[in-house]
């Protein structure tokens, strides 16, 4: 089976294209699937993570997935960020060190993910950001990663990669899984038949969590949104049919044409931000409890 990919950017159209591959290969088992990149003139590096959500599921069904006819500019991007190593192609040195390479983590690998961030956030091409911004960014990524570990039920792992865009002073980092999705989590928990966008909005509200047991939770995504607002960055959450985007201008959730098989969170930050990220004056123990 041969499938064509167009240009893929980190937007609604890009996620639709990736989700369409999942749709076209829905019941595929033990097949040979060729992804034809000849119509793909640009591939935004961070989109390697959600693309792998689709590929991981196909490989899990013992399909043989290959990549063909890649234009050299796209190949350079995807070899630099080491995505093509999963297709046994050699990596290309990233001399500028603006890439946080594609990597597959097991669900239990929170500490290894932290080591990964330690290592690649120090790349010479990654700008020196304020201490407060660096900390909040890493905290946010760990919240997303651990959220995926708890909720996704994705035995296939968690797929990550990031890219710094020096001209725009933006750093994108994407964490994707091939799990059951936010809609299924919310449906199971609330026992109501909600659609993908309502499920994403529910999960974003402070205090909402589908974590089993009777612990409070559900702050991670809300904290993420607060951070993005302050930083004037951008947050995209894609899960099943829901494409949610939040930035300084507000938020929206569009229904996609095809269902994304898992959940993907893309966090884009403004690296020139010098906010302190400490809102109130010193709290003492009595104020906290």
């Amino acid at each position, binding site marked *: 089976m041969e499938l064509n990919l167009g240009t893929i950017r980190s937007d609604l159209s890009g996620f639709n294209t990736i989700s369409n591959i999942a749709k076209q290969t829905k019941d595929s088992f033990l097949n040979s699937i060729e992804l034809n990149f000849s119509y793909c003139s640009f591939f935004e590096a961070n989109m390697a993570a959600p693309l792998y959500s689709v590929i991981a599921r196909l490989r899990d069904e013992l399909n043989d997935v290959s990549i063909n006819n890649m234009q050299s500019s796209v190949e350079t991007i995807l070899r630099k960020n080491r995505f093509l190593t999963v297709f046994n192609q050699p990596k290309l040195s990233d001399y500028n060190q603006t890439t946080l390479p594609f990597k597959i983590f097991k669900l239990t690998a*929170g*500490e290894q993910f*932290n080591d990964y961030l330690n290592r690649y956030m120090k790349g010479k091409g990654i700008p020196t950001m304020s201490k*407060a911004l660096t*900390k*909040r960014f*890493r*905290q946010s990524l*760990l*919240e997303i990663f*651990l*959220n995926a570990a*708890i909720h996704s039920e994705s035995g296939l792992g968690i797929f990550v990669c990031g890219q710094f865009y020096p001209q725009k002073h933006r750093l994108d980092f994407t964490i994707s899984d091939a799990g059951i999705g936010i*809609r299924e989590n*919310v449906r199971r*928990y*609330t026992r*109501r*038949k*909600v*659609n*993908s966008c*309502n499920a994403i909005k*529910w999960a974003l*509200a*402070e*205090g*909402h969590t589908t*974590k089993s047991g*009777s*612990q*409070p*939770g*559900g*702050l*991670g995504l809300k*904290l993420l949104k607060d951070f993005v607002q302050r930083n004037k960055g951008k947050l995209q959450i894609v899960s*099943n*049919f829901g494409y949610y985007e939040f930035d300084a201008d507000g938020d929206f959730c569009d*229904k996609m044409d095809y*269902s994304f098989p898992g959940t993907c969170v893309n966090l884009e930050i403004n690296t020139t931000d010098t906010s302190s*990220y*400490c*809102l*109130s004056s*010193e*709290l003492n*123990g*009595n*104020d*906290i*409890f």
Partner: protein
Amino acid sequence: MSESIKIKVTDLIGSPLCISAEDGQKIFDKVEKLLKEGKLVTISFENVTMLISLFLNMAIGQLYGSFSEDTVRTQLKVEGLSSDDRELLKRVVDNAKKYYANKASYDDAWLEEDENEE
């Protein structure tokens, strides 16, 4: 009351990273037992390099399911947190209080059903 018992987070979880739910649960189990015995407890975050809300929900947020606000305020202290992490803890605590005060409606709030798609 007797002297406060110090719980060193990094010693107990064997890592400077406070990121996993399991490690948060470890802290909760120790603290809950001591508070039940009426002990004063200080949780020390000294040498912690990373802290996220998920961990704090388990370690401290859950205490509001077992104890009154007064008990927690009287018997529990924290130390070694930077000012932004104290703020994070405050968010977690406020969230936990609201959660246990009104659990059912908190979970069900405003969710609309939608039968006509997907």
